[in-house]
């Protein structure tokens, strides 16, 4: 019986090792959004192209869409731009843009030069909707279901691999939901 107690340090060390091992490879910058399962926060934002037209959360109703947070000041947004165009044109995915803390003229120029994958672009120069969404770094891409509920958040660049492995299965499952 006493001999068994000699193994206590080993057991403790192994347990600690397993706890630490579980943390290896986890990306600490990946945070789960606090909004998953909740509706997109209320907003009233102008269209990027025309300041007189405003949108609210109804823009998400009726289709499963991606909400892409971007800005011309964000280098990674340039990286993902061709893939967003690929998603919109080849895959037919509706993408709503949230132009975040940006300058209207520069944003329009960017879309003219690089192409425009967005169904609608919301203009949020103060980053109010971004703040309510808990955006802490662009680019961020959210999956919004037909009822305007946030279902997933991806922080970082969206490319073909991210689409296939992470976003597409979720988008498809909510599209099927009807």
């Amino acid at each position, binding site marked *: 019986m006493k001999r068994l107690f000699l193994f206590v340090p080993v057991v403790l060390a192994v347990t600690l090792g397993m706890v630490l091992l579980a943390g290896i490879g986890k990306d600490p*910058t990946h945070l789960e959004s606090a909004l998953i399962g909740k509706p997109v926060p209320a907003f009233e934002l102008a269209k990027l192209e025309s300041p007189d037209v405003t949108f609210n959360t109804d823009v998400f109703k009726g289709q499963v869409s991606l909400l892409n947070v971007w800005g011309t000041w964000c280098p990674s947004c340039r990286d993902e731009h061709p893939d967003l165009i690929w998603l919109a044109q080849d895959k037919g995915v509706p993408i709503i843009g949230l132009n975040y803390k940006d300058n209207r003229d520069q944003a329009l120029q960017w879309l003219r030069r690089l192409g425009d994958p967005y169904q609608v672009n919301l203009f949020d120069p103060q980053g109010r909707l971004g703040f309510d969404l808990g955006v802490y770094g662009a680019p961020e891409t959210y999956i919004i279901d037909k009822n305007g509920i946030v279902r997933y958040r991806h922080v970082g660049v969206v490319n073909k691999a991210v689409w296939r492995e992470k976003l597409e299965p979720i988008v498809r499952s909510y599209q099927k939901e009807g």
Partner: protein
Amino acid sequence: MKRLLILVLLTVCSTAVLAVTDDLYPLASESDRERFHSLTKELRCPKCQNQNISDSNSPIARDMKDEVHRMVREGASNEEIFEALVSRFGEFVRYKPQFDKRTALLWATPLIVILLGGLLVMGVVVRSRRNSETSSGLTEAQREKAKRILGDHPQDRTGDSSAKDPH
């Protein structure tokens, strides 16, 4: 002389930096200012994860400070302010997470460890006391032998050693 001037300038500037936070986030009362400082120290920046928003100058930390400042000015309670930020950024932004089902183990761990340690110490104490109370566990014959070896009866010892000692 020039160096001295630069030194003086730098010293003045560095104290000016310290005063900046109060200028950037003006609040009417001393208690509000204190509340603002303690709140921004207890909220974590989601982008620069090892900093609180008071220390961080990243855009998101500034947005969060603006929001805390606005709410403090409007007289919101600390709980309301935490709630407002947690609902956007998640429990992650609180350095002191609230006590609920998910965090119960986290909060209880120190207590559990102290209890276990106390039990261990108690066990050791009880056992050593029991050992000292009862005899050392030797039979009468063994005790005699030990006495002989330790030299209580020199006459026995010499006889014994001559019999057993091969030299």
